[in-house]
Every structure is written in C-alpha cells, then in structure tokens.
C-alpha cells in the first residue's frame, strides 16, 4: 500500500519540551492510535504524534497490516492504484475526492454491458458477447462465438462448411455439410413476457428471446424429433434435419437447458417440461420460421422462469466460478396451488388465478437465492412463512439474503410480487428497517427486510450511492456465502448461520478498512448491535 507519511510532531499537545508536571510525560491514546477526521494521532513514547492524512488526499483508517490507525490512499486498491477509471471485477472503478481525501467509486456494469478499458479509461459498454450465449450462434453461414470476452465471427463458407448446432458440448460450429441434415429451418424464438413493475403489477405483454432453451424440429405425422439445438441468447436458432421434401414439420421450444453451466428444467408435471409448438410448414432446404410462445397458450411463463434461472446460473458462474452447478428443477403450471417455495434443488411456484408467480421475476430469483445458499453457501433456515416481521435470525438471514440475491441479479433494489389484488413492491435502497433492540443481544429476532437492506447498501456503489459503503460491490457481498460454507462460525449470535456470521465473513474477506462504513450502514442506520469483533479482527 502506498502511503505518503507526513509526520508532524506536535510537542505542544504533550506540553512541549518545557512542559512541567507528570501529565506531560503521559500519552494516553490507545496503542493503535486514533482518527479525528483525516488526522491520525498516536503515541511515540510519551509524545503524541499527529499526521494530517489529508495533505496527500489520504484518509485516516485502520491499517490491517499494522493493526494501527494510519494514513492510506483509499484509491490505492488491490490490483494497483486507481488514477483514471479502470475495470476491476467487471465494474468501473474510479477515484473521487470526498471530505478531503480520495474515495474509490465503483460502478457495476448493468445487464447486457461490460467494463471495457481497452481505450485507456474504463467504461461500461454494450457487451460484445451479449446475445451470443455459451454455445455460440449462427447467422446464415456465419458462426459467432464469444472468445476472450469478444465476439469472434467465422465465415463457414470459406472452408466449404455450413453453420450448425453440433451437440451440447460443442454448441454451434462450422461443420461439413455431409455431417448434418439436408433441410434447414432458422429464425428467432421469443416468448411473451409481462415484466413486473415497482408497484407489483405486471406490465403489458412484450416479447423477449427464449435464450438458452432447447428447440427442436418435429415431424407432424409421428412427433419424432428430427433435430434439436439450443437457442442463442439473442433468440436465434438454426436446425438442420433430414425429412421428405414437402412433408409437414414444426418447430417446438421446451423450457429446459441441458448445458452444464445452465442445468435447468422448468416442468409442467412430474416428468414433462413445458413445450410450445409453432405452425406446421413443409420441409425444405431453407425455411425461415420465427416462433412466438404466447401468453394465451399458458406456457410463456415457463420460459420466463427459465430466463430468470439462467440469470441466476450466470451469476453463480461469474461470482463463484462454478461451471457445473447441480441440476435445478422448477415446477410451475397454470392452476398450480402447491405454494411457492424452495427445497432440495427444486423451486415450486404458484400458478393460481389469484396468485400466479410465473411472471414474478423477483419471486423466482428469491427462491433461486435459496438454491445459491444450498450449492455455494450455507443455510440453517428453519423454513416456514415470513412477512418481514422480526423473526428467527437464521430465517431472517436466509430470507433476507434470498431477496437481496433477487435484487442484485436484476441490478434493481426492488422486490415485486404480483397477484389478483394488484400485488406489492418494496425498494430496499430507500427503506430503513431497524433492529428491534439496538442495545440488545446479537441473537435477537430481526426482520429479513433489515438483512436485505444492509446487503444492498454494502454491495451498491457509484456516484449516486446514498450510503458510505462505496468501495465494495455485489460480488463481494455474495462471496460471503463461501465463508459461511467452509468457515468456522463464532459461537455468538444464534446457533447456525445468521447476520453475525455473515458480517464475520465480510471482515475476514474484506479486512477492517471497511469497518467505518459497515458500522454506519449496519449499526448507525439500522441499529443492529453487531460487536465488530469477529475472527477477521476487532474493528477499532
């Protein structure tokens, strides 16, 4: 860490060299020193030594390495100091000035954008791989794959090949014409979505790509599958099959993804996934067919649930580097009334007229958050109903984390749940839910809302951030689950994983330099009496 130490002996503070009396010989500051704004004070023998960190735009902070207070440039981050905006962990990190010292500002790039600093300064730009997907895609005979974060195009005709889907391991590729069917159908596959609004109500129908879903061409006469592929992330697909010229076939999309990185199936029954078949057409060497899964078919919601699960799986891969999470099964059908809940790598969602969760993105991703706890972290949630009231701290942690996951995965701090009564929505960034007993025990009952609000404030950042925690990011918050999974939990708070254990993990992973802003968010704003004395060290 770069530190420009400008020491200044303030003899007068200790009475000067001609001060008389026993008090002049005693420096009663804590051994680690203290901060007063940007000024650090510590003892040098009997003398008080002060240093104005602000002279070099440094801040007075607790130095983890030295276990003392000292000056540090907060823009001197792991990976190198930040002067101009740079890309770190997919976010734009820049350096600003606040209260007389540098502060790092982290702006996470939203869905469909990535951080690019190839021109010398980091900025969020449209993801060049957006719309491709892990299996690549074909546009005519041009094969496009995402290689090293950039789109790489190959003209298959240059080698006498055609662009086709090979298998789930290979995806789309240039292949010899003789290895694939003589007929072809290509187009765009979409489903009718109804996006949840902040109020909880659903928006009007708007089509979205059926990214990642299985798509097949079926022979009408006997329902035999002639070829199958995966829809690219922009909705495009191509199927090559053999059939008698002119015989009737059709294209069907099914609500599942067989890819190892996105192992998802959205089932209608115990054994079947949802499928939607388009109009029949005559088999030909080249057919263009766009598929639209309609709301009126009762299947479009299944494809929305698949899409949300893909968001979740892609988040798992990005944060935990897990390229082969276990199979997730989602159960939903119109009319289903067995509740909305998660258990054992299965998510069940209501499909009733009064409460249908098929389009409720944050409800689906909340339940996916429990899957994340299961496969990447740990949960001791006793389960059961919860409504935001103070509850068992293990339940509050788990449910609050799951709600936070739904928010961070979508990049919007709002939870929404539609129903026939209009539904409801809740914004974690502009809400303050306090612990019931600010001076009470660590294992007191707390609200899941307080958990979600704290996590959002720890993870959000950027120029418009309304809390002092600006130097972390959502990835750092999610990675606390890794500590919960493998770390030794302190015997404080409630037995089992709760907010106390999560904060312990945070300081172990992030160090004590974040003590002040975390204290402001967790204890100052929301009154939770965390002791700031976990295995990561004692916060000053």
């Amino acid at each position, binding site marked *: 860490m770069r530190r420009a130490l400008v020491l200044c002996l303030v003899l007068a503070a200790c009475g000067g060299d001609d001060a008389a009396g026993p008090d002049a010989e005693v420096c009663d500051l804590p051994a680690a020193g203290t901060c007063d704004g940007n000024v650090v004070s510590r003892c040098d023998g009997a003398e008080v030594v002060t240093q104005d960190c602000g002279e070099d735009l440094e801040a007075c902070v607790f130095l983890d390495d030295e276990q003392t207070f000292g000056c540090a440039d907060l823009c001197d981050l792991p990976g190198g100091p930040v002067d101009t905006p740079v890309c770190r962990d997919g976010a734009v990190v820049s350096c600003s000035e606040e209260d007389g010292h540098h502060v790092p500002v982290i702006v996470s790039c939203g869905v469909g954008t990535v951080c690019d600093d190839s021109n010398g300064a980091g900025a969020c730009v449209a993801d060049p791989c957006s719309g491709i997907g892990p299996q690549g895609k074909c546009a005519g005979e041009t094969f496009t794959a995402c290689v090293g974060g950039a789109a790489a195009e190959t003209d298959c005709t240059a080698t006498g090949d055609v662009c086709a889907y090979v298998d789930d391991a290979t995806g789309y590729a240039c292949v010899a014409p003789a290895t694939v069917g003589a007929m072809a159908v290509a187009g765009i596959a979409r489903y009718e979505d109804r996006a949840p609004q902040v109020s909880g109500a659903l928006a009007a129908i708007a089509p979205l790509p059926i990214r990642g879903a299985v798509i*097949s061409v079926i022979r009408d006469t006997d329902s035999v599958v002639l070829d199958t592929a995966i829809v690219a992330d922009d909705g495009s697909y191509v199927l090559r099959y053999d059939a008698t010229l002119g015989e009737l076939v059709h294209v069907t999309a099914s609500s599942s993804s067989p890819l190892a990185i996105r192992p998802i199936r959205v089932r209608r029954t115990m054994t079947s996934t949802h499928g939607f078949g388009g109009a029949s057409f005559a088999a030909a060497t080249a057919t263009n067919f766009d598929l639209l899964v309609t709301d009126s078919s009762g299947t479009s919601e299944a494809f929305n649930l698949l899409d949300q699960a893909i968001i979740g799986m892609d988040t798992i891969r990005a944060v935990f580097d897990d390229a082969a999470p276990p199979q997730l099964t989602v159960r939903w059908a119109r009319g289903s009334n067995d509740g909305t809940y998660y*258990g054992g790598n299965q998510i069940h969602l209501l499909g009733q007229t009064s409460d249908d969760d098929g389009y409720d993105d944050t409800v689906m991703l909340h339940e996916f958050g429990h899957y994340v706890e299961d496969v990447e972290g740990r949960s001791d949630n006793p389960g059961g109903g919860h409504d935001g009231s103070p509850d068992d701290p293990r339940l509050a942690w788990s449910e609050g984390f799951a709600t936070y996951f739904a928010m961070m995965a979508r990049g919007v701090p709002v939870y929404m749940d539609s*129903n026939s009564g209009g539904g409801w929505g809740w914004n974690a960034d502009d809400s303050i839910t306090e612990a019931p007993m600010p001076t009470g025990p660590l294992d007191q009952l707390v609200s899941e809302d307080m958990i979600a609000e704290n996590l959002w404030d720890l993870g959000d950042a950027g120029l418009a951030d309304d809390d002092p925690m600006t130097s972390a990011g959502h990835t750092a918050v999610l990675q606390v689950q890794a500590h919960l999974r493998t770390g030794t939990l302190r015997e404080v708070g409630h037995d089992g994983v709760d907010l106390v254990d999560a904060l312990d993990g945070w300081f172990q992973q992030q160090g004590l330099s974040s003590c002040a802003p975390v204290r402001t968010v967790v204890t100052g704003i929301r009154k939770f009496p965390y002791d700031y004395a976990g295995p990561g060290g004692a916060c000053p």
Partner: protein
Amino acid sequence: MRVLLFLCVVLAGCDPAPTPAKAPAPRTAPHGKPTAAVEVRLDAVDRGGGDYDVTLTATPTVATDALELVLDGRKVAAGAVAAGEARTMTTRIHLGGRGREVLGSAAVGQGNRRRNRAASTWIGAPQVAPAQTITIITMPDGSEVAEVRE
C-alpha cells in the same frame, strides 16, 4: 349479471379473535416467498336461485396501520387493526346457472410500506378446464416435453 352488495366491513366486534401478539406463522413450506402479514380466506354460501354470498375474511398477523379489503372488485378501507382481529366483507353474486371465480385480497400497511395477499374461490356451475391438446414429445435423451400448439 345482477350483483347485490349488501354487507360491508364490520369494523368493530366482528370475529375479534383474541390474539394479543403476533400470530404464529404457519411453518408448512420450507423457504417460502415473502408474504403479507395477513391471512386471507374466501367462503361462499349458496343461497339458492343462483345467488351466492361470498365472504372475505382478513386477519392481520401483526398490528397494522391500514387494512384494506378488496372483494370482487370492491374495495373497503378498514383502518388500523390489531394483530389477530378479523375483518370481513361479504357480497352477494347472482350467477344464473353459470359458474365463475371470485377474487379477494387484503392489504396491510405499516408506515409507507404496503403488502397484500390474494385468494380465490369458485362458485356456481363446476369449472371446466379449457380444452387444450397436449402432445408428449420424447426427446433424444429420453426426456419428455408436454407440447402445446395454437
């Protein structure tokens, strides 16, 4: 359709279940979704002649500043209600031999937050599921797809 609304919310003394504190939350499903702190129930009574009395019962599980009931499109504000105290709303619906679903919901407010919960009940002639042809497609890996076509 002739609809008679003849009962309103009884704001006091109606089924005041004596629950002084937070009612125990049902622990039936693991890891359920966040809900509103109110239990909602719909009951229907066949009055004959195609008339049905449908009653919405809303019981907050924590004290609420503002309870709102909505039944078959009609809305009534019940104000502040203690935990465990039920409020009801009844409407008479004339069906004339047909059947239909009736929707009800209740919302609870605390400060500037509002959450609601909904319920439904079917009255009249039995519900007939819309005809939908489903074909089971067997995929090359042996998995099954329930295919719907329009």
